[in-house]
């Protein structure tokens, strides 16, 4: 496209901005319907117990209570992944973590609902509980699910890694731990359900994945999906925490059906901690073999995931901990073993980066140490192992555009990393790291051959464009992406696009706002739809102007001849011409990722139509007397492919940096006495405005051949290198390795006092992984 872009690439005000700044945006809890009831959920006080008896009679008798549900009212199991259908809306036989839903009431107000919960009698037989990876493996008490606390174990090998290790000039092994943390969106989950007199159920819900919620409602409620309408309301933050199907969604729906009245359930903040689906705690062992000049010959990676009480996305999370190692390093031979254990804690799932921040922490601190051992600076070590664009990794991931080198150059130059790192003032240090992330998972959560993202356009005679798409804006700006792409292709403005999103009655499928897929996939669908519409317009206008359709351009609200711009019609006239010719101007576009999985079992997790790349340098300022670590400045470079809206992309980068710093320094899911130690916004620490560092953001545009206008993802990638860069900076400042996340002051002090100058795990548990699946490697890696 030789012509200059008019909407794409511009830092325009996004379509939903004014609704948000005026307070007019309706979030789920803002909805109120006539005669609406309030639902509340009774949750398990025990981490692991059998339910012997549930007596709801006193609750039912309380005036103002219109319905009470127990597990038997919703017996059909569900789960986000087809292979993990292990959840019940309300527990029937067993509870598996403190917070596990057991019963629910609908009442005329929340005070009565809370009173009713207190009147529900539950008799439990407590079971021993396990709260860590070690405990889960060692336990000889009743397993949390089935016959074992092992949820999923995988073992894959690409090339003979043992042989490479034996002959490597340099080998290093590290063990690190990344504690779990949670999304902490400012908006608590909420859902409003209404069951109309004609038997149509509508659920408004703060969800990133209305399509998956829709499917689960059909399954659990045993209603045809055509009698269920799911509308995702704008999310007040998601970050992966609103991508599962939740008990309160199913319960609200069922209560609405049973009472015949609308029912709202809004989780308290404590309940949001129990809903969780956040970052898995992961214990990792990484071993790399290298030549004497620092080229990787092989890597062996082992991860132990602490999954919590249910499966959630955990099988995918497990694979993710081993998937993206080879997208930032040219690794000729690779072994990955991963296992996810069940524990009696809220279930873990996808949080920004989904299973890759933990291994990224392992990788980037490991290579920082390797570089030092080899006498190389950390940047040079990366340079010697760069992946190639347009290549396949040894585990079959297809890389298209790769701006990693440019990202590295930007942050190294911007921060003066190489010059400054050896002469930092006392307590100050610089750390460097790189990373990469998917622009959308290449495989849908349930296997099917249908598109992952679909857009429908309908034009009206005034030149307005209605755009329908299942994608929900969670704050990341997906509304803008859809509107901007359609506007660009059609030559109109953002203001001409009328969006309807995330309504299963009206909008074609988008799988959901997760996995950083929306810009790439819904964007491509929008582009395809707009191009079809453009084609219809051009055919009609060409006829009217007696020229070829190829001669035409759509721009500035007109359709005109490229070489004689005065010869043209307004956009509205173009629509009218097309409508006169063939009826209403409408088209659909869709996007299905190419089939990219490698020829091995488990290859479904990791492939993506494109990968973003990032690099970061972090400066820390440590108080050597207290161990406190502050971060005054961060440099981040991100290969975005193309920034559809630069200011929104920078916003994603800055938000990612912020969240990374929170995880690196203070966020942690800690448990004591079998339950979450502090499920509150006060005690679960997240950074305040006072702690915001100076941030330098560099956008690298590699114009990916498959992304819409070349765009790739921005919502998750920039978070990844920042966490290990903090750890590496602490080492540069203080000479201590904190091989654990978060890096808290007491750990820093302990490391400074310890002879080892290190805090972190020393070993991984004994665990019998399954036999290695030895996969073929792509042609380019054979014999390497």
């Amino acid at each position: 496209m030789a012509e200059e872009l008019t909407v794409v690439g511009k830092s325009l005000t996004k379509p939903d901005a004014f609704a948000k700044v005026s307070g007019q945006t309706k979030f789920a809890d803002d909805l109120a319907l006539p005669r609406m009831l309030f639902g509340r959920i009774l949750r398990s006080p025990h981490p692991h117990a059998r339910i012997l008896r549930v007596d709801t009679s006193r609750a039912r008798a309380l005036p103002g209570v219109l319905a009470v549900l127990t597990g038997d009212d919703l017996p059909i199991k569900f789960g986000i992944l087809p292979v993990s259908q292990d959840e019940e809306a309300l527990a029937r036989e067993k509870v598996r973590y403190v917070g596990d839903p057991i019963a629910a009431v609908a009442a005329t107000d929340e005070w009565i609902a809370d009173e009713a919960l207190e009147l529900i009698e539950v008799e439990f037989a407590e079971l021993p509980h396990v709260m860590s990876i070690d405990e889960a493996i060692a336990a000889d008490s009743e397993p949390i699910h089935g016959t074992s606390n092992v949820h999923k174990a995988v073992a894959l090998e690409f090339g003979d890694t043992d042989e490479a290790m034996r002959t490597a000039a340099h080998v290093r092994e590290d063990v690190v731990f990344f504690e779990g943390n949670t999304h902490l969106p400012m908006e608590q989950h909420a859902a409003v359900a209404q069951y109309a007199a004609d038997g149509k159920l509508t659920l408004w819900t703060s969800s990133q994945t209305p399509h998956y919620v829709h499917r689960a409602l059909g399954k659990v409620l045993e209603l045809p999906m055509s009698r269920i309408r799911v509308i995702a309301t704008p999310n007040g933050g998601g970050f992966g925490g609103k991508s599962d199907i939740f008990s309160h969604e199913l319960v609200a729906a069922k209560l609405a059906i049973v009472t015949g009245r609308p029912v709202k359930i809004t989780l308290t903040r404590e309940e949001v901690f129990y809903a969780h689906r956040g970052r898995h705690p992961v214990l990792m062992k990484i071993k790399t073999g290298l030549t004497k000049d620092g080229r990787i010959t092989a890597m062996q990676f082992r991860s132990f995931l602490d999954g919590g009480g249910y499966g959630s996305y955990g099988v995918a999370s497990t694979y993710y901990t081993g998937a993206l190692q080879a997208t930032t390093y040219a690794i000729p031979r690779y072994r990955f073993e991963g296992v996810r254990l069940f524990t009696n804690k809220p279930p873990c799932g996808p949080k920004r980066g989904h299973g890759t921040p933990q291994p990224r922490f392992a990788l980037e601190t490991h290579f920082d140490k390797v570089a030092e051992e080899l006498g190389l600076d950390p940047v040079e070590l990366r340079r010697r192992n760069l992946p190639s664009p347009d290549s396949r990794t040894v585990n079959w991931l297809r890389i298209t555009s790769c701006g990693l080198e440019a990202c590295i150059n930007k942050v190294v130059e911007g921060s003066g990393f190489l010059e400054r790192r050896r002469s930092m003032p006392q307590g100050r240090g610089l750390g460097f790291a790189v990373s990469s992330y998917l622009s959308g998972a290449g495989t849908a959560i349930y296997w099917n051959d249908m598109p992952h993202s679909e857009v429908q356009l309908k034009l009206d005679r005034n030149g307005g464009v209605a755009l329908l798409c299942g994608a929900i804006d969670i704050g990341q700006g997906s509304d803008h992406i859809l509107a901007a792409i359609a506007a660009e292709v059609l030559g109109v403005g953002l203001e001409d696009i009328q969006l309807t999103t995330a309504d299963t009655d009206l909008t074609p499928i988008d799988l959901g706002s997760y996995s950083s897929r929306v810009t790439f996939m819904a964007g491509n669908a929008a582009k395809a739809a707009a191009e079809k519409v453009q084609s219809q317009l051009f055919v009609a206008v060409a006829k009217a102007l007696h020229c070829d359709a190829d001669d035409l351009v759509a721009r500035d609200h007109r359709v005109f001849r490229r070489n004689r711009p005065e010869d043209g019609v307004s956009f509205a006239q173009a629509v009218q011409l097309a409508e006169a010719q063939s009826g209403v101007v409408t088209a659909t576009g869709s996007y299905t990722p190419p089939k990219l999985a490698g020829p091995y079992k488990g290859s479904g997790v990791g492939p993506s139509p494109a990968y973003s790349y990032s690099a970061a340098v972090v400066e820390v300022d440590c108080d050597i007397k207290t161990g406190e670590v502050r971060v005054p400045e961060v440099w981040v470079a991100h290969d975005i492919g193309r920034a559809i809206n630069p200011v929104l992309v920078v916003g994603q980068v800055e938000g990612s940096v912020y969240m990374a710093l929170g995880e690196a320094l203070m966020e942690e899911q800690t448990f004591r006495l079998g339950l979450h130690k502090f499920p509150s916004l006060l005690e679960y620490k997240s950074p305040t405005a006072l702690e915001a560092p100076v941030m330098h953001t560099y956008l690298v545009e590699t114009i990916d051949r498959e992304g819409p206008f070349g765009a790739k993802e921005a919502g998750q990638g920039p978070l990844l290198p920042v966490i290990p860069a903090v750890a590496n900076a602490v080492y540069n400042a203080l000479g201590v390795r904190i091989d654990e996340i978060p890096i808290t002051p007491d750990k820093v002090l302990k490391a400074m006092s310890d002879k080892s100058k290190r805090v972190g795990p020393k070993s991984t548990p004994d665990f019998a992984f399954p036999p290695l699946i030895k996969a073929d490697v792509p042609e380019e890696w054979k014999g390497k």
Partner: protein
Amino acid sequence: MSIADRVAVRLHVNGEDMAVMVPPYKTLLEVLREDLGLTGTKHGCELGECSTCGVLVDGRPFLSCLAMPLDLEGREITTVEGMAAGNEPHPLQVAFAELGAAQCGYCTPAMLLTASALLDRDPHPTRDAIKEALAGVLCRCTGYLKIFEAVELAASRGTRRG
């Protein structure tokens, strides 16, 4: 709630007198959202640990989740709905929209009101003064920087009052 549980509360919100019959144990947050139809004020914890519910009382940032309506009769309450002048948005609202300072938009009403109180007091605040003023409002999306920049942009353009 029986009728006897309710008391008359008169509140002056966004320049308008409003009277409602509400239980005396409802916080200002609940009355605004559930009885006055003003859902622009959000909530993140209801315990005073995030300031998502921030409003202004006599021009000062208050937490509506902790404020008791009976003690607020006669005082000037401002919510995000009251920031615009007619159909003209407040310069802060324009700046937030232009700079992408509202991502998910959930902390935005509280951020806007708190920032407007700052600019009323200090029309040309330093970056540090902005950070201090916003130190009590949590945001999980933006990393705060664009919010600071939007406040500075609005300050440079001048706000209506003062």
